[in-house]
């Protein structure tokens, strides 16, 4: 047995591995061109314990396809740099429900990993879709204290446009998942 290699911060210059087109999983000529599904926009703002925007964060997106399967006809990976206001914006297809532990079914969700200067290890969270009936029985949401569950619920702000803000610290801090 050997210990896993230690995590280190991505630092402020990770943009050398940024490819802005990766933020659009539905892009023409991309791996999912032609895949059928409901196209959605997922936006959010990343803020710190002072409420200040995190303008140098890297957000990675990982999700199932519209059929609820991973990497079976839909390449569910995206990456987006936050802008000067701490905002990120993905275009993707809405994922389907994913099998959960035992006989359970997980509500449609998108995993977000947050990397940044000052984060010694990336943070992981999930974006669920507010008012989705399957949320009520989701086995992972059920592990989150009810009072904080809202931090995982993306809200509709326009047809096909969902928003989930990420607060790294303090009041209304986002629930991060230990995976």
């Amino acid at each position, binding site marked *: 047995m050997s210990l896993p290699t230690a995590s280190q911060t991505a630092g402020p210059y990770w943009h050398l591995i940024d490819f802005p087109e990766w933020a659009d999983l539905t892009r023409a000529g991309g791996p999912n061109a032609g895949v059928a599904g409901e196209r959605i926009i997922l936006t959010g703002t990343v803020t710190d314990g002072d409420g200040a925007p995190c303008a140098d964060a890297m957000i990675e997106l990982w999700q199932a396809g519209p059929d609820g399967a991973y990497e079976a006809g839909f390449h569910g990976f995206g990456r987006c740099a936050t802008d000067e206001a701490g905002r990120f914006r993905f275009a993707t297809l809405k994922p389907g429900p994913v099998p959960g532990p035992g006989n359970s079914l997980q509500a449609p969700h998108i995993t977000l990993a947050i990397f940044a*200067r000052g984060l*010694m290890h*990336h943070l992981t969270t999930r974006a669920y879709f507010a008012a989705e009936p399957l949320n009520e029985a989701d086995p992972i949401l059920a*592990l989150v204290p009810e009072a904080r569950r809202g931090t995982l619920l993306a809200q509709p702000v326009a047809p096909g446009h969902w928003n989930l803000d990420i607060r790294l610290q303090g009041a209304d801090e986002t*629930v991060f*998942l230990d995976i």
Partner: protein
Amino acid sequence: MSYPPIPAGAFPPMDLPSYGSTHKRHPDQPPVRIPHTLTETSAPRFTPAAYPAHADMSRHNGRAAMGERIILAGRITDEDGRPQPGVMLEVWQANAAGRYHHARDQHDAPLDPNFSGQARVFTDAEGHWSLTTIRPGAYPWRNHHNAWRPVHVHFGLHGAGFAQRLITQMYFPGDPLLELDPIYQGVPAGARERLIAKFDLDVTKPEYALGYRFDMVLRGRLATPMENPT
């Protein structure tokens, strides 16, 4: 299938008083532990066909970058020593003068038009990878008075499960800045030394470049599933 928790002593804490940028960015609440589902045990499939590899940072547009050419090589295994094939490594670094090809890097050191500072390689069936680059320079940062980062190369690893995702930094042996660096020193003793590459004559190529070995370990999966499939 699942991955056991990160063992104590392996990772640095999120709240590192000596590293100013952690102060307002580390969560106050502990993360919520969840059982691993398909979401955590599957991972994006990255192939050289869709994500072309480029393993030589020492040249750009056919022209040689300035500085000392070096070869980096290593093997990626998991906690149980199993080789990890098909891992995509994203690599980025400063140039020989300690300057990143990045709009926000304002260090008064020259940019090199022949050095992009970014590579992408994949592990083979036995977990081996290698690349050619230029030894980076140290650079100043504003964390504290007269703060300089030790010479380092950033590595991002994409394994077979999203729970294995890792970003780390590789350091060079004998760097006097290591003992002064909060980011390196933030890793528990015993784990931090493994972030230092080893000079290796077998990686070194005669009449060409010195070689360094940097092996990395990803989380190993549990043999027995956490949940019984029905």
